[in-house]
């Protein structure tokens, strides 16, 4: 990842952004786990651009609209992910990068981060934006690993992103409120869900996306050997997969004029009050 801003006057706020976007099974299908591989079943399932990634694309587009620059969408996935990358291009991203290789199948989160980092290093970006977690596997591990591999700071759980001078300033959501944190570019940012409402692609955007470039790389193209990625390179193993425990029966409070008191007592027993 090149340090663009060092070679330019600081007031020239031009940001080139890579957005890591995953394709996930469409929300209308129930995600199934293959009992032998313990991985999400992807064959024969319709996929779509992760809604969380669409928010990341939207945030990136807003930044380049304000400062100039270009958005590149980076995806690791099956060859047909190209169709989903086009959706981000229709929204306004300039180009796409797809890393697709049978050797990558079964990659753990670190393997995924390595592949993304290798592809990102082939370009020149001031910022990488990821969703906090993908909406199929929800590990939330890739962005941190990716920042480490790229050697940049990670600003996470962003609810607001700004570029000021040579810095990214992020309003970060926490359990108790928010923090405002900043870091010199280049930087990696993860955006929280609900940070924005992704735009509807325009018909012109959709037609224009046809002509935009999507570079496709194999693992070897980005300099990765099979032992670093995929099933064989995976250091993380899923041991068992189970259903979440069924929720215990709720408590019904019958109001006989003392409903308020009963609810207060109940909450007190949970130590909530």
């Amino acid at each position, binding site marked *: 990842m090149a340090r663009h801003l060092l070679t330019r006057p600081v007031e020239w706020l031009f940001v080139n952004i890579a957005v890591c976007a995953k394709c996930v099974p469409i*929300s*209308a299908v129930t995600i199934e786990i293959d009992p032998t591989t313990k991985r999400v079943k992807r064959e024969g399932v319709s996929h*779509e651009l992760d809604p969380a990634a669409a928010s990341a694309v939207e945030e990136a587009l807003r930044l380049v609209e304000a400062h100039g620059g270009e958005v590149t969408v980076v995806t690791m996935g099956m060859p047909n992910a190209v169709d989903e990358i086009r*959706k981000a291009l229709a929204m306004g991203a300039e180009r796409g990068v797809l890393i697709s290789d049978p050797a990558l199948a079964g990659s753990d989160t670190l393997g995924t981060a390595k592949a993304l980092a290798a592809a990102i290093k082939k370009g020149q970006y001031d910022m990488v934006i990821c969703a906090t977690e993908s909406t199929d596997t929800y590990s939330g591990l890739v962005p941190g690993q990716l920042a480490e591999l790229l050697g940049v700071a990670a600003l996470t759980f962003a609810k607001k992103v700004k570029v000021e001078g040579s810095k990214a300033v992020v309003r970060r959501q926490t359990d108790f409120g928010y923090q405002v944190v900043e870091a010199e570019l280049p930087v990696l940012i993860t955006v929280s869900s609900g940070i924005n409402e992704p735009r*509807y692609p*325009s018909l*012109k955007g*959709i037609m224009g*996306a*046809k002509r935009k470039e999507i570079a496709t790389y194999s693992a070897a193209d980005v300099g990765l050997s099979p032992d670093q990625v995929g099933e064989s390179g995976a250091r993380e193993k899923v041991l068992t997969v189970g259903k979440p425990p069924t929720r215990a029966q709720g408590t019904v409070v019958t109001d006989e004029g003392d409903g308020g008191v009963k609810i207060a007592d109940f909450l007190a027993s949970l130590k909530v009050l």
Partner: protein
Amino acid sequence: MSVSSPPPLDFLGLRDLLSPEERMVADAVRRLVDERVIPVIGQHFERGTSLLEVVPEMAGMGLFGMHLQGYGCAGMSSTAYGLVCQELERGDSGVRSFCSVQGSLVMFPIRAFGSEEQKLRWLPKMAAGEVIGCFGLTEPDFGSNPAGMLTTARKDGGSYVINGRKRWITNGTIADVALVWAKLDGKIRGFLVEKGAPGFTSYEIEHKMSLRASITAELIFEDCRVPEDSMLPDVEGLRGPLGSLNEARFGILWGALGAAAACYEAALDYATNRVQFSRPIAGYQLTQEKLVQMLTEISKGQLLAYRLAQLKEAGRCTPAQISMGKMNNVRQALEVARTARSILGANGITLDYPVIRHLLNLETVYTYEGTNEIHLLTLGREITGISAFE
């Protein structure tokens, strides 16, 4: 919010026949409808207010005049236009009507029959949603028989003077420009009348029980004076309005399927959840027959629509073929809506479910843009060579 909508009703896998761009267009509009129309449409219908807040979004996406070339229009395929109508009407017939009137009934005739100045002046702004148009053909005494219209225009120096009334005009009170069809020396001509032109007034028609989320108006022209260059130069006679209606009807025959699909999906969902006697009502043969009939008619209608789109793209679609599509698809959609209504029982009459709203809307769709009977007679004349109109 979510970027994904449930997949469209497509029992025959017709989506495979679409280009990736057409699929993307349909998906984008589907999402717009899920997020911006469906959550609020019941309230609009109940209050009788038009869903104007989605107009900027529709314009921003480029939906107005999307099937026209140049002048700020997206130049998409007929299939894409049909798919958009289908998705919009899955939300509400009123929303689709807005798009039909703007794109097919006003922008299309300006594009096809207007002067270069008229095209440059109106089309980019209409595509951008900055100018809203309406189409005035029907009169209080002339509906199915527009050739008998009483509205006249006469030349007076450097202007035309229009007199007459147009009734049932969608968007009539909010339009910035009205395309008014009037007789000049006994021949039908189109005039672009701007809002505020002297002698032009309009009022909203109230107490409608159908298309309540769409404005319908009466336009009154009393010695209304418009500049000479307001007339569309390149068309004379019924060919002008009928050519435009043909475009809009193509959208309607797709749109009606969207309304039908919404009713079918609501009924299927209801029937699988509603338990009476020993099981969900979907488990009774009578309900299954209803559901199967609905799905079959929708699927047949989709085949008809796709084929007409192919013919249209090849420049070979005849008005009679469009008549068959409009007649069949709207009639079947209405039948589907009624059947869905019966499956929902008492809930079927409330606005908590989309069915009664679609059912009531489809009563308008059955009548406007050529009534069911008029399309039937058009086909009758086509196959027998004998006109049964008069």
